[in-house]
């Protein structure tokens, strides 16, 4: 029962974190450290919403020890994900991705002739009305939750 509650807590924290992340936009060229909310936006989607509101503080039971806690590496099917939880004031304030599945030893033969045919565009939020189904990835977020769970367990028992 306790495990279930802890698991539930982690899922709630993850959802809260996801909501908080929504207000941030990707920034490129930074080196690894903690992630802080940024106001420079994506070329489209987020700007269209004009969302410049302050991110809500992530909810948490506030029972964690302060510090940075590294989670276990979790399998995301095509590589591993590992995150660190940053706890401040007893709360989860940030999550840093330490390991991310984007490397591979094998080289791949690429049809370079295809290159000029590819088209580019900045992503842009679409009217979600009249959509029946949504396609998106899931398993990375499962691995993310798994790694974050172990990080938070460490923060709790520290």
């Amino acid at each position, binding site marked *: 029962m306790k495990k279930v509650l802890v698991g539930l807590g982690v899922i709630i924290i993850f959802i809260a974190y*996801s909501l908080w*992340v*929504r207000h*941030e936009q*990707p*920034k*490129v*060229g*930074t*080196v*690894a*450290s903690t992630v802080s909310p940024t106001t420079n936006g*994506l*070329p*489209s*989607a*987020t700007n269209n919403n004009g969302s410049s509101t302050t991110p809500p503080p992530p909810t948490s039971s506030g029972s964690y020890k302060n510090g940075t806690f590294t989670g276990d590496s979790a*399998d*995301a*099917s*095509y*590589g591993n*994900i*590992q*995150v660190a939880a940053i706890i401040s004031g007893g709360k989860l304030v940030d999550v840093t*991705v330490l*390991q*991310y599945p*984007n*490397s*591979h030893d*094998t080289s*791949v*033969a*690429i049809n*370079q002739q*295809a*290159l000029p*045919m*590819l*088209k*580019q*565009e*900045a*992503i842009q*939020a*679409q009217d*979600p009305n009249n*959509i*029946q*189904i*949504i*396609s*998106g*990835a*899931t*398993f*990375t977020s*499962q691995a*993310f939750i798994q790694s974050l769970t172990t990080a938070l367990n460490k923060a709790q028992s520290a």
Partner: protein
Amino acid sequence: MKQTRLIMGMPITVEVVGDASTHDFKAVFNYFRAVDHRYSTYKPASEISRINTGQLGAAWSDEMAHVLELCEETKRDTNGYFDIRRGNTLDPSGLVKGWSISNAAVLLRKRGHRSFYIEAGGDIQTEGKNEDGEPWRVGIRNPFQIDEVVKIIQLSGSAVATSGTYIRGEHIYNPHDGYKPATAIASLSVVGPSIYDADRFATAAFAMGRQGIHFIESLPDLEGYMIDTEGMATMTSYFDRYIA
């Protein structure tokens, strides 16, 4: 009629247009449960777990042997990028999802249905038309803002699978180079006639990073929509045929 169940650790949704009975839905969901029972690496009693712990010896089921052969074939097709080996263990889940959706679609067709979709964890096989008699409209999720869609495609008898991550990609640790700025992609959606191909090639192409979209371009019948960590999308030559 539409139903959703949580199986294989993810929500699976089936919608059937026209007359459908609860037995149709039961058949599909029970099929996914059986797949989970055999292939889940999280279940110690599953066949794949017993293979990995050596309990099963060589007494694999014919179906398992077939699936592992499909994995080997996919590894060859993707220049080694699709690999189910993790150290000494096997994890075919990267193939089983698309393969099982594809089989579930066959199951519904055999039960007489011609207009439906099956969606498992964001991977979708469509058949026929929606209840308005139009192609199914599918949104591709914004990898940076999960409640938003950034592209709408129309599918009728085709499939889409998306590989990616909904965490920010700017802090990437590469075991070979250490920390470095992002060069990776946030999500890659692959569209094609069958979810089996769309899923396995989306998984492999995502692991290739930015080169993945070129790999999809090189494959006949498959089109791709890649979103990089800067919010730029790159699409293959004929992806626009699917854009709503």
